[in-house]
């Protein structure tokens, strides 16, 4: 690991100010992904700004009947919150399907959104990777890529976003609240939060350098049956091959978001109109324009079949 200086801050304003005056700084909260990458020298910050003790660890009701989840709320606490379990069951289900108990105790809401891909070539510094080293090439294209993206990928990168939580957040229409160094706040719909890889896969979100996530908001509950079905190589503690997060209403209408298929949680609102007609037309709409390799082509039928199972389960 490269050496770095360290400071702990106690306010969002102090955090963004510290970032502005220190070149090569990164925020650290749970650290479970950042430190892992620092050990491999994939991340090499010169300065760490510890934001883990900011008073952003509350889950509060919003005026419009939704919830504001502080950026520092731990995954365990978010999954356990009585309001989340009752009204946003999809979010609890996605969280408890992710990582391990130890990691969920440390990982934060904001950090979960910002975790980086688990593409093995991104992790292997002996391999070219446009995300790790822009312009170096992509070893996953033509390499071992059964875990990789089937939608939204580019000729520069076929990595997937690994978060389960983000899949639920996408189906729930979450918005990400931030503040920048000038003190300017904004709310970014999660649909607009992740950047397509295109020719610049190292740029993963629309956040500006030094912009800090302060909260994630959920609109008021939409009811329905909440199901998160994650398909993985082992029954627990593994990243998704694919996952289906769904909210299904009594009349058969609903929402679907997918994990493990692209650079972001994948949702196509237009495809959801077909939900009462079953899994196939919805899966076709979600995966329109998919580009597969011989190793990851299985993901297309797997999405359809998993969605079919989810819809059957939703009928009770």
């Amino acid at each position, binding site marked *: 690991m490269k050496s770095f200086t*360290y400071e702990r801050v106690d306010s969002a304003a102090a955090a963004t100010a510290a970032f502005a005056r220190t070149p090569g700084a990164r925020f650290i909260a749970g*650290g*479970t992904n950042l430190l892992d990458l620092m050990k491999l020298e994939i991340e090499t910050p010169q300065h760490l700004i510890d934001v883990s003790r900011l008073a952003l660890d509350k889950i509060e009701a919003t005026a419009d009947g939704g919830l504001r989840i502080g950026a520092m709320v731990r995954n365990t606490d978010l999954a*356990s919150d009585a309001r989340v379990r009752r009204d946003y069951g999809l979010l*609890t289900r996605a969280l*408890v399907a992710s990582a*391990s*108990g130890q990691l969920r*105790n440390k990982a934060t809401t904001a950090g979960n959104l910002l975790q980086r891909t688990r593409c093995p070539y991104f992790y292997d510094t002996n391999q070219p990777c446009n995300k790790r080293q822009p312009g170096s090439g992509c070893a996953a294209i033509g390499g071992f890529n059964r875990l990789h993206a089937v939608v939204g990928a580019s000729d520069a990168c076929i990595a997937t976003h690994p978060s389960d939580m983000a899949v639920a957040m996408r189906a729930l229409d979450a918005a990400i609240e931030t503040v920048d160094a000038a003190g300017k706040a904004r709310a970014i719909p999660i649909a607009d939060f992740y950047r397509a890889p295109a020719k610049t896969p190292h740029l993963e979100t629309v956040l500006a350098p030094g912009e800090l996530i302060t909260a994630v908001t959920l609109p008021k509950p939409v009811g329905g049956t909440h199901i998160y079905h994650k398909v993985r190589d082992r*029954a627990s503690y593994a990243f998704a091959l694919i996952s289906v997060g769904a909210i299904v209403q009594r009349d058969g209408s609903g929402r679907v978001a997918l994990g493990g298929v692209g650079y972001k949680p994948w949702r196509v609102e237009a495809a959801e109109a077909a939900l009462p007609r079953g899994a196939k037309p919805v899966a076709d709409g979600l995966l329109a324009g998919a580009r597969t390799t011989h190793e990851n082509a299985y993901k297309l039928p797997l999405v359809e079949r998993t969605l079919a199972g989810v819809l059957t389960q939703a009928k009770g």
Partner: protein
Amino acid sequence: MQTPEEYELSRRGVLVGGAASVATVTMVPIGTAAAATPPAKSPPTAKVAFEVNGTARELELDTRTSLLDALREHLHLTGTKKGCDHGQCGACTVIVDGRRINSCLTLAVMHEGEKITTIEGLGTPDKMHAMQDAFVTHDGYQCGYCTPGQICSAVAVLDEIKAGVPSHVTADLGAAPAVTKVELRERMSGNICRCGAYSNIIDAITDVAGVKA
């Protein structure tokens, strides 16, 4: 970056130099690296004070020091084990402010003022914690390397169930989770045992929880 030729050269240096001429052996790689490396300055340090197993400790550490390395290398509490050092195996599990975490994936300096419990703090050979006792009774290990992490994790798991933390296998999110084998297996999935003592580990935990297996 080392080119294949340079690698070949240093490798040959090792072979030719052998044990008698250490200087020759090391000269080539150092000479190659030195050109790109600025003069060494000591890495940044920071002070941290926390409580470990009930005792106040103060350390000044290289900021890079993980909580795991602080415990093992600086406080000589070697019960906590380093397995993968990447949060994949759970051997480094300790309990911080009542919660189990991977001590390898957290910086020691981030734990100012916190209370850390390691396997040494749960019990001693003369006065074992109930979970340690149950692991012995049920033979919940083979080589024993993952055991401190397993035990710390197991103690915290029972508290998590008591606190109502749901898991992937909790059927009803509206109800309190129960202590069942299925729940325990899921909740212990962050602790890998390469010897495969899993069934005995679950027997030990259900014993402590007072649940009939």
